[in-house]
């Protein structure tokens, strides 16, 4: 919307044209026009009664592209909070129509909302969630105090789930059960993937290695050449080489929820999920699918 001052400075273009046309041509109304008048509808924008020219300091600033508010509006986030679960292993699940689905067993154990983050205070919307149980003797007083001030028992794991806006926030202390998810919906599963240790270039980056025979001596799994000749005369930064692989944060998107077992707090999801057995997995509504 243009500021009021601009409107007051430049009158509507149509009004100028209308007045000049009147001067150039005959002012008498033709017979045809008298019989069937052509409606010359010209909209002249009238400023509101309380309009005044704003000073430079009063003019509203545009939202900067690299501000936190603009970033929040651009982000693709889930509408609701997520849940922390423990990956216990995999199993087979037979559906009613006879299909066998490989499922991962995820145990949701005593999950509660521990803290809530808002746009006004922290600059974004998030729900902090705690799961499991832990001996308070093995926890710092800071963490115990953070939970105890809202009458929450000591939790084994605390994690945050970003949400789109305040409609996804839950009151602190709310228990989140497995009923939160519906059978057939899609979720994103996040976890720290299994560590592979120091791995070679074939496993780590999918290099083809060298031939198994034809004179290749003791370098069947090596990378081969690592660069050019005198120019650049060095190995470029970021060259794919052997090194530690795995143990990183991994997200598997669009994982289908096959079965929800509320009596024992277990979710069965289709397919594998990042991380080893007994590892923590964060489950939240899939951002690339519609809100359930």
């Amino acid at each position, binding site marked *: 919307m243009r500021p009021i001052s601009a409107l007051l400075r430049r009158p509507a273009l149509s009004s100028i044209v209308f007045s000049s046309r009147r001067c150039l041509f005959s002012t008498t109304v033709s017979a045809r026009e008298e019989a069937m008048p052509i409606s010359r509808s010209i909209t002249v924008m009238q400023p509101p009664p309380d309009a005044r020219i704003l000073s430079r300091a009063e003019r509203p600033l545009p939202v900067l592209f690299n501000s936190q508010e603009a970033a929040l509006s651009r982000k693709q986030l889930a509408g609701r909070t997520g849940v922390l679960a423990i990956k*216990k*292993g995999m*199993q*087979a*699940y*037979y*559906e*009613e*129509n*006879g299909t*066998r689905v490989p499922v991962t*067993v995820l*145990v949701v*154990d*005593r999950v509660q909302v521990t803290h809530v983050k808002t746009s006004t205070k922290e600059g974004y919307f998030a729900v902090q969630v705690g799961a499991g*149980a832990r001996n*308070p003797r093995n926890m710092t007083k800071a963490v*115990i*105090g953070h939970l*105890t*001030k809202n*009458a*929450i*028992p*000591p939790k084994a794991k605390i994690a945050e789930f970003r949400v789109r806006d305040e409609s996804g926030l839950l009151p602190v202390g709310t228990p989140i059960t497995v009923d939160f998810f519906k059978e057939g919906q899609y979720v994103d599963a996040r976890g720290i993937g299994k560590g592979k240790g120091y791995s070679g270039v074939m496993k780590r980056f999918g290099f083809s290695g060298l031939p198994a025979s034809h004179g290749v001596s003791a370098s069947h799994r090596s990378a081969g050449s690592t660069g050019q000749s005198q120019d650049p005369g060095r190995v470029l930064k970021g060259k794919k080489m052997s090194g530690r692989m795995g143990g990183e944060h991994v997200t598997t998107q669009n994982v289908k929820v096959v079965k929800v*077992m509320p*009596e*024992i*707090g*277990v979710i*069965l999801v289709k397919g594998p999920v990042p991380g080893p057995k007994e590892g923590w997995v964060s489950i939240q509504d899939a951002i690339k699918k519609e809100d359930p």
Partner: protein
Amino acid sequence: MRLSLFNRLQLRPTAPALSMLRSSISLVQNAGYKIYSKPKKVARKIPVSPPSLLPANTHPIIYITDQLKKDLDPTGWRRKLFERSSDICVKPGDVIRVLFRGESRDAFTGTIMGIKRAGLDTSVRLRSEVAQVGIELSVKVYSTSVENFEFISRATKRARRAKLYYLRPDERK
């Protein structure tokens, strides 16, 4: 004693309206100032966690497998047919017929070549000769597409092997 008193001294001007501070006075007035000591902090009680929903002494996978088995096989007939300790257990060499749910799949009769025991994934491999063409079929015992197993005949002689792959024709000939 003297050192602790010095540490606890909080020199503040007199404030008659602050009754809460007055209640924590532990020392006598001195030179127009009241000496206060901090009220003793009572440690907040840490709430106790409720027990977990899963039973304590069983592994969740084993517990869930049992739950799923109860849904798939409430009477336990599938388990009895393939459990080694059961008296009606099928053995390699026996002939059985599998009936599938729905009209699309026909029943399959064949000799048991082997039983792979893997919990919910327990499967049985059947071999049959149909129009001089050998056909093998691996059937998941707990699958919902399996309606029934029919026992046709027991092996004439006990097979001395668990897996009867020798029934397959020799490719060398």
